[in-house]
């Protein structure tokens, strides 16, 4: 009698337990969908008032009730783009080094160190940036660029230290470990038959890497870079601490700037009414940008893994 009762209970568990796991999974999906919906609802009053002029406006003036997102969006895209320019060569080089060149003991030590870099909280990177990097950017880097390449529009104006250049360097430091470790995983998934085939044709080691390994992993590597980009676009604390909080659109990398995330971080808790709605609209723009970048990145990485499945 007791035995059959526990059996009934266990059978019941077999029906309930998968349902519980399903519900929890649906919560995750629901949170993601709700972020989009709630941000849109909260931003709606601002969208209704300013419409598309929000994207083109250059001022953020709560007194005159004029809100424009252009400098923040421009700052976000510029600082992330510059960060990629610095980070791509370093991190692809590191990923190749870690999979193809380094002896195996060095591989695990070096990957560990790079993973630690990824784990350092953003606010601490910002603290280091504020007190160590910004002075260095101001004096040797920007003053040198200003004297020698000052005729270019990118290097004009007084060397503040705080500005797009410091933000780009900090962002690069933060996304290098991400691109490196994802890139390393991609390169590891390249079948060794590809390498051996190339070497058997008489290629050198570098020819093997550049003509066989990299082309094979291309879409995965692009995916890794895009994930790094997604991270850079949304990075908040470290950028807020070094970018200098100037609300302007300018070609000069020496100039203080703003990103969407840093605007939110510095203004949000002091805003109310339509000003707050406009900030949430900024957040919505950031969400949509990072969402599209991440979706493309994931699809690229998934495509690579499914291709690998077919050839195996």
């Amino acid at each position: 009698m007791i035995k059959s009762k526990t059996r009934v209970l266990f059978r019941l568990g077999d029906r309930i337990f998968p349902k519980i796991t399903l519900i929890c999974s649906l919560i995750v999906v629901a949170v993601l969908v709700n972020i989009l919906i709630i941000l849109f609802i909260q931003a709606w009053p601002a969208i209704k008032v300013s419409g598309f002029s929000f994207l083109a406006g250059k001022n953020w003036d709560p007194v005159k009730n004029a809100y424009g997102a252009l400098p923040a969006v421009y700052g976000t895209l510029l600082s992330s783009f510059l960060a990629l320019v610095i980070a791509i060569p370093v991190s692809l080089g590191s990923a190749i080094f870690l999979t193809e060149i380094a002896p195996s003991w060095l591989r695990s030590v070096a990957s560990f160190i790079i993973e630690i870099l990824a784990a350092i909280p953003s606010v601490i990177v910002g603290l280091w940036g504020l007190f160590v990097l910004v002075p260095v950017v101001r004096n040797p880097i920007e003053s040198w660029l200003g004297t020698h390449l000052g005729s270019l529009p990118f290097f004009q104006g007084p060397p503040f230290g705080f500005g797009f250049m410091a933000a780009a360097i900090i962002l690069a430091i933060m996304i290098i470990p991400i691109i490196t470790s994802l890139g390393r995983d991609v390169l590891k998934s390249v079948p060794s038959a590809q390498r051996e085939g190339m070497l058997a044709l008489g290629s050198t080691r570098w020819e093997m890497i550049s003509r066989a390994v990299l082309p094979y992993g291309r879409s995965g590597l692009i995916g890794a870079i895009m994930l790094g980009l997604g991270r850079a676009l949304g990075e908040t604390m470290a950028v807020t601490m070094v970018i200098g909080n100037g609300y302007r659109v300018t070609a000069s990398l020496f100039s203080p700037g703003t990103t969407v995330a840093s605007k939110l971080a510095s203004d949000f808790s002091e805003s109310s009414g339509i000003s707050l709605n406009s900030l949430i609209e900024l957040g919505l723009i950031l969400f949509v940008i990072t969402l599209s970048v991440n979706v493309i990145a994931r699809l690229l990485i998934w495509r690579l893994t499914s291709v690998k499945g077919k050839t195996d």
Partner: protein
Amino acid sequence: MLGLNSLGAGIAIVVVCLMLGYIIAHGLSFINLDFITGSAVPAGQAGGGMHNEIIGTLILVGLGSIIAMPIGLMTGIFLSEFGTPFTVSVVRFATDILAGVPSIVVGVFAYAIIVKPMHTYSAFSAGAALAIIMIPVVARTTEESMRLVPGAMREAALALGITRWRAVISVVVPGALAGIVTGIMLGVARISGETAPLLFTALGNSFGYSGLGNPIGALPLQIYRYALSPYKNWQQQAWAGAFVLVVIVLIVSIAVRWLSRKRRV
């Protein structure tokens, strides 16, 4: 060209070592007993510490983990054991995308759904924001480590007449435990340093914990405020706080490395 690649790795490693070394050395010089046990003091006044903020961070991380662990774990179990190919791809995609949502946007979301309706900044809203950030980390590592458990173990359990959910709970989960613990620790390390989502949920509170419905202080938040302040004393405390956070992160990273070593071999 091979040399250039090694140079890339060299640059990355040198940067980490410089940064870590500087933070640890500089932070250590400002650490004292007062920092751990004292409360915040007005600017310019000597002494003072981040006792309340350290407690606040512990509470927030605990709160975030309590919400995130069951949901993340269950999602991981669903992805690895119960999903159909279609639901698995949808949920996995959502988890990956959620992991990529900027933490400040998560903060805005928590503000909109909790702070605004309740008309007060609160520890609870901050815990919820941190949980949203932690869930994807726990879910994906749980899924990955459960997939590493051989199918033969599941079949052996089922062949003994045990039901499927019991097999999952008493055979598969214990088999994947090292990986699951790793995931939880990675999540804890991630949220203990998060600052952006706390700015307009936890807000900060120098007078210590006063209930989940009220503003609460947090270590990373205080580091941010003090770092941007013009006062030497506060800046030094920011460095000391950074030291504490970095040490926590380092310990967790090394523990994770140690835990996952067995699986990699």
